[in-house]
């Protein structure tokens, strides 16, 4: 549906520059992975793309429009984000029903109750969870509510920050299957942060490796099993992941 182009993205907090000229492209309907060191800036890239962080320089273009120029209303229907930290992203005093109905109401969509119920079923939660509050959910259940909220507006570009790292493998399998199905049916474009290269290999066509605020290498998924990376950090990361899968 819509390609994404990121050009020379830079951001600093105080005196510390956190992103250095981050540049990459995600093709329309592609699923693109972002991996790398903890603290290297992966979540910050996604926060800049969704304008949660605004003081960056460079360009983020979705389709043919810069995200800076998109009106809020159009932006949230174009790009949605699933946060790494579901507690932080759900309002503690809003029930699941409130969380899911708000975007529907703002955009005046019809069949609200049916959409909300379907969104919960899609992420494997019982429909009566609509009445619950975040503190009454387990960690993985909160994460699934956050995924349901991002999907309910059917955005063309989904930014997924460790969407399944809080989930057990059986629920992870259901969510990954759901994401794969939505992509093949609706042509969504995904940008997915993960620490798990087996998830990246399963879901993504290509991926970028980040270290200390820079993209060190962009690789095809086929580079994982054979460790075909050429940059030292990317090679180390893939080697460590291969060893971890085989042995820890």
């Amino acid at each position, binding site marked *: 549906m819509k390609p994404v182009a990121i050009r020379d993205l830079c951001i600093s*907090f105080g005196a510390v520059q956190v992103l250095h000229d981050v540049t990459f492209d995600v093709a329309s309907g592609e699923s693109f992975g972002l991996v790398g060191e903890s603290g290297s800036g992966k979540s910050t890239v996604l926060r800049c793309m969704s304008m949660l962080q605004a003081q960056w320089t460079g360009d983020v273009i979705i389709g043919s429009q810069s995200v800076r120029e998109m009106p809020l209303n159009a932006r949230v229907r174009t790009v949605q984000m699933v946060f790494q930290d579901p507690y932080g992203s759900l309002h503690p005093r809003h029930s699941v029903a409130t969380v899911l109905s708000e975007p529907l109401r703002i955009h005046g969509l019809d069949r609200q109750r049916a959409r909300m119920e379907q969104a919960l079923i899609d992420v494997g939660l019982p429909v009566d969870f609509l009445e619950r509050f975040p503190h009454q959910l387990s960690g993985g259940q909160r994460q699934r509510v956050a995924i349901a909220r991002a999907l309910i507006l059917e955005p063309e570009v989904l930014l997924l920050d460790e969407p399944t790292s809080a989930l*057990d493998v059986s629920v992870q399998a259901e969510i990954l299957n759901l994401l794969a199905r939505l992509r093949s049916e609706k042509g969504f474009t995904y940008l997915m942060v993960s620490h798990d290269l087996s998830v990246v290999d399963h879901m993504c066509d290509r991926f970028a490796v980040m270290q200390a605020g820079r993209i060190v290498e962009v690789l095809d998924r086929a580079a994982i099993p054979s460790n075909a990376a050429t940059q030292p950090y990317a090679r180390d990361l893939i080697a460590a992941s291969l060893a971890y899968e085989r042995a820890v």
Partner: protein
Amino acid sequence: MTDPILDIRNLSVRYRGTPDPAVRGVSFTLGRERLGIVGESGSGKSTVGRALLKLLPTAEITAERMQFEEVDLLNAPERRMLKLRGRRMSMILQDPKFSLNPIQRCGHQIAEAYRTHVRASKAEAKAKAVEMLAAVQIRDPERVYMLYPHEVSGGMGQRIMIAMMLLTDPDLVIADEPTSALDVTVRLQVLNILDALVRDHGIGLIMISHDLNLVRNFCDRVLIMYAGQVVETLDAADLDHATHPYTRGLLAAQPRIGGDRSALPVLERDASWAQTGATT
């Protein structure tokens, strides 16, 4: 088991206002070892951990026995629990950012936690906090010391929680998904820190995790939970030979590097799994 750190028999937990208990009839003992708890999202893993520390104000806890060393947890008053928590039994919570105070710098929180347990000057506490941040492989500990919780990355938040636990010398550590947000390299370093605590300090470690590779290779024994019950207990090395259909389903649902990318097998949940619980 001689001289267990924990002896838990028939533990059940029911949250107020819910019809069914979140945890039912869970029994296990813990020695100076690494015990993994795996299981479906919502199966009650974190509830077990919080029940052991009695951190469940809105729930009713029942058990035949809940013994931590010489302490009868079931009948211990809150006064007693306050002295135990953080000092002799520590929990690394699943949502690190939620458990930190949002309006106080991360480093100050570690330093203050240190000063509640150990008599130390402010400068000593700060030096200790920076040292602990470095111990958990945070790159520039002086900078991270000054950051507020919303300014640290997911993996940094997890390591700040671990740093806080390392301050004291607990006998029991309950780690709830302590490494899920860490890249593989840092994860192995953090696991080595936890491993050293078990090996050198003889602590008991309960590791709640979704990562089957991790529990297989890092833990000694594993409890498998389903719908609030322990359905299977295994030596970690035998995880691949699990017999319970839920455990087998878990193993099959794991994506593999170099896999064929077809839809992952999902569990066909069977109502009978929730009825028959096994105990240790």
